[in-house]
């Protein structure tokens, strides 16, 4: 299962399974959880469906509700919430075919960090950089498979790409 024999096939199979799950997910979502465009295209079919809308932009708001735009599709959301035109939001709500609006369940503003708090968005990047550097301290990247012309049986011959270099317990 983890040997070098048929490595290309194993890599291909793993990628196929991983992408297959992703395509299955997208396909299943289309039949069980439509997006805003799907709801507006077939309102009767999706009446009462729970919607999760990412990164919508508030176009206008009033005392009764507000108007959003998401992926080029606009929709009315009721009741009103603490949002203003121009805000970016994530929201969950229930689609109502009668009147074609979304009954709001939950809304969150996104990208709302201001001032020094904006530096917090750098933390994940720093964590990721540190983790990758730590990995490269212990493993050497050797893309032998791409080095055509090396003498057979030479150092590092084979399809390996990440070789453990440091001994166990090395700092």
């Amino acid at each position, binding site marked *: 299962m983890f040997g070098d024999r048929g490595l290309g096939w194993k890599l291909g199979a*793993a990628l196929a399974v991983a992408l297959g799950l992703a395509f299955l997910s*997208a396909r299943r979502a289309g039949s069980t959880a439509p997006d805003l465009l799907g709801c507006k295209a077939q309102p009767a079919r999706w009446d009462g469906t729970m919607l999760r809308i990412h990164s919508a932009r508030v176009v206008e708001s009033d005392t009764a509700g507000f108007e959003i735009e998401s992926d080029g599709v606009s929709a009315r959301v009721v009741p009103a919430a603490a949002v203003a035109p121009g805000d970016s939001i994530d929201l969950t709500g229930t689609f109502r075919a009668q009147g074609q609006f979304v009954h709001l369940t939950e809304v969150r503003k996104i990208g709302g960090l201001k001032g020094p*708090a904006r530096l917090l968005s750098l933390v*994940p990047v720093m964590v*990721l950089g540190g983790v990758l550097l730590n*990995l490269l301290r212990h493993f050497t990247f050797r893309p032998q498979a791409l080095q055509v012309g090396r003498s057979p049986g030479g150092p590092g011959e084979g399809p390996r*790409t990440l070789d453990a270099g440091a001994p166990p*317990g090395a700092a």
Partner: protein
Amino acid sequence: MPNLLFQFAAAFAVGQGLRDGRLRSVLYAGVCLPEILHQGFLLLAGTSAWFCLPLHSPLGMVPWCYLGALLFEAGWRPRAFGALLAGSWIHLLVEGIHDSWGEGGVLWAFPVTLARFGGRILRDDPSWRATLGAAALIAGLSVASRLGKHPRGSR
């Protein structure tokens, strides 16, 4: 989504029980793997959120971790697979107990089932206080490790 630092802090705590620094480094890479893949597909490839959902399900991470393990030298692949999978599941476990936007929890075997685990146990709080708390946990564990809890351990 909780800060990646929280997830790393959880993996760091688990990693203190591992003596091999190389294995620990793969575990930490596994913690970042769901986020790298998710953001990569979502932001760089422009795929839909539903397409990316298996990247945040424990079942969906199995083929990606296997794929990642195959990139290591043959003798290291089983250990790399275990460490990558453990790391990615730690990521999802921490994500599952956070008060994430929407219904909360993690779909553990999506798209096979819609069953969830976890829920709104910890507040999803990207504040300095929470970030410093996670950093303090990492620093505390690191100091405790160096003070002799694992004399032969290393980073």
